[in-house]
């Protein structure tokens, strides 16, 4: 076997095995450096995997040499590659951009623990993205969740603790629901491997335990993915986490839950449960719609930029859920594209917020008034990413919104009202973003000081690279499109037009 065949395993092992080494370090800087290098290596591996997926495909990897369904397999398709790029990219962005910010938030003595947890979270999320086994997904979900709790609890505000406790409870309920669902499926099929499950479900379709299983899995993962109204843990967790952590988790953690949701609902149930697509659609679309509209509206009334963006995330998750709930080829394409593009936009936005807080010390609106004049470069990047969030053409956000609208238009009967809702929520997004942009450019700074105070050049460069990526993928979206196309094909398995 050559190294290329080991790529799926390496994707998980590299960050996972670096973590114990990092926690043994005694120096915060070295720990950060180690974490950054491991994260960069993961990003490189994700790129290699993406290239492989778009080329000849990635062969199934049998852990321990035991062939599935007896052993655990790792499977990488377009959708997995998309998730891997997101997860490793967000982690690298957070670590590289978060050096200064984290040095303030985490004291040197505890830093190795923190960076160890970061790497474990990264490994957990990667592990989910490559797993081909339902229980293995659970294990890695718990790894990433526990590590994420630590990362969020590192926030300096004491409210980080109460937020993270809520997240822990809800996250555990979600994961346990998922496990119950897997249990029911195992009970009826005797297998845990996704592919095998999809095959064997054909014999037991429409039995009560399978329907219950679909319910538990969908609700459990919706909890983890913060689909409205199961989002209550999200805004505070994002708000009070250290800024660099928010960059990381806001870009990818909820998306990984949606990834599993897609895997199950399309890879496993869709071909087998006759009424599944209707049930799933009827369940998810009203939730998604209310999320899109209400969360956007709530975001308008926030006085803290992080909280505002967090509510915006809930709305954006609504878009993804809406697209996924359509149960069509176009819908799935839109869902995957929006995962990618939203991660790109939100990662950039939170990175800008990190820079703001780094120089001003707080994320409240009153404190950030006039910041656009003080930090023109960062603020300009914020505006670009904000436009991508709204879905202005030329930015990445437009591509996925366009796909979403086209997918929605394909729904007979209720296409038009859905389009209206999407457009209305885009307008709401304009309102809540512009509230901040206006304040940033024309507000009076709290101390009346309008002198320049940009963040250091490396961080600024990083922020601008991220912002430009939003434009690049708006004009040249071939990469996410190809991955989403490949992912959709595997998800639907040729079952849908």
């Amino acid at each position: 076997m050559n190294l290329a065949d080991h790529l799926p395993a390496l994707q998980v092992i590299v960050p996972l095995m670096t973590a114990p080494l990092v926690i043994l370090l005694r120096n915060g800087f070295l720990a950060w450096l180690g974490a950054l290098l491991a994260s960069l290596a993961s990003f490189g591996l994700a790129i290699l995997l993406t290239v492989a997926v778009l080329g000849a495909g990635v062969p199934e990897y049998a852990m321990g040499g035991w062939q599935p369904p007896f052993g655990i397999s790792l499977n990488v398709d377009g959708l997995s590659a998309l998730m891997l790029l997101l997860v490793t990219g967000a982690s690298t962005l957070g670590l590289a951009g978060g050096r200064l910010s984290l040095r303030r938030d985490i004291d040197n003595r505890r830093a190795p623990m923190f960076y160890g947890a970061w790497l474990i979270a990264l490994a957990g999320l990667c592990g989910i993205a490559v797993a081909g086994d339902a229980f293995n997904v659970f294990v890695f979900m718990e790894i990433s969740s526990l590590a994420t709790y630590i990362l969020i609890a590192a926030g300096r505000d004491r409210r980080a603790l109460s937020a993270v406790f809520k997240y822990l409870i809800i996250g555990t309920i979600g994961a346990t629901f998922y496990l119950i669902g897997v249990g029911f499926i195992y009970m009826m099929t005797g297998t845990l491997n996704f592919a095998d499950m999809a095959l064997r479900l054909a014999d037991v379709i429409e039995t009560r335990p399978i329907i219950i299983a679909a319910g538990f899995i969908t609700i459990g993962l919706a909890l983890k993915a913060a689909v409205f109204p199961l989002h209550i843990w999200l805004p505070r967790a994002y708000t009070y986490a250290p800024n660099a952590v928010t960059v990381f988790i806001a870009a990818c953690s909820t998306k990984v839950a949606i990834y599993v949701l897609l895997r199950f609902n399309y890879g496993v149930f869709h071909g087998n449960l006759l009424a599944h697509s209707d049930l799933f659609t009827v369940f998810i679309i009203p939730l998604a719609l209310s999320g899109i509209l209400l969360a956007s509206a709530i975001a308008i009334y926030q006085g803290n930029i992080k909280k505002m963006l967090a509510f915006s995330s809930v709305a954006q998750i609504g878009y993804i859920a809406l697209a996924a709930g359509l149960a069509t080829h176009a819908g799935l394409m839109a869902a995957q594209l929006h995962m990618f593009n939203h991660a790109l936009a939100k990662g950039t936005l939170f990175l800008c917020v990190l820079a703001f807080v780094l120089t001003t010390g707080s994320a409240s609106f009153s404190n950030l008034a006039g910041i656009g004049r003080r930090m023109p470069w960062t603020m300009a990047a914020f505006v670009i990413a904000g436009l991508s969030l709204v879905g202005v053409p030329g930015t990445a956000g437009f591509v996925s919104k366009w796909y979403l609208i086209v997918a929605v238009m394909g729904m007979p009967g209720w296409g038009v009202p859905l389009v209206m809702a999407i457009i209305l929520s885009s307008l709401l997004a304009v309102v809540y973003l512009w509230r901040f942009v206006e304040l940033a450019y024309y507000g009076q700074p709290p101390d009346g000081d309008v002198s320049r105070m940009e963040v250091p050049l490396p961080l600024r460069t990083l922020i601008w690279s991220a912002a430009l990526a939003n434009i690049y993928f708006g004009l040249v979206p071939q990469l996410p499109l190809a991955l989403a196309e490949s992912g959709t094909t595997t998800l639907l398995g040729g079952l849908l037009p």
Partner: protein
Amino acid sequence: MKLLGLFNYWVFAVLLMIGLYALISKQNLVKKIMALAIFQSAVFLFFITMSRVDEGTAPIIQAGVANQIFSNPLPQVLILTAIVVGISTTALGLAIVVRLHEEYGTVEDNEILAMDRES
């Protein structure tokens, strides 16, 4: 007989819901952690019930005994992992509760929420 054979699953459902109820309605954070443990234990019971087979024994091969019937080892393995995950969550949750108590001086959810609203 058929009904008794489903009793385990009913207990699973009831325990799960007792745990969930306590998670939602109890304000004390330590209580919530205990409720979480009950909630997870219910799932353990669910899986282990699946693993059992009539006339079977624990899946340990004894030398010289042929044609043994074994209970299903797979759910047992899964639950071994799940138990460990459960205790890890409990430990982490408890550590957070201890820190919360230090910061807020209380471990009642509603009181903490009230203090959060003020600040």
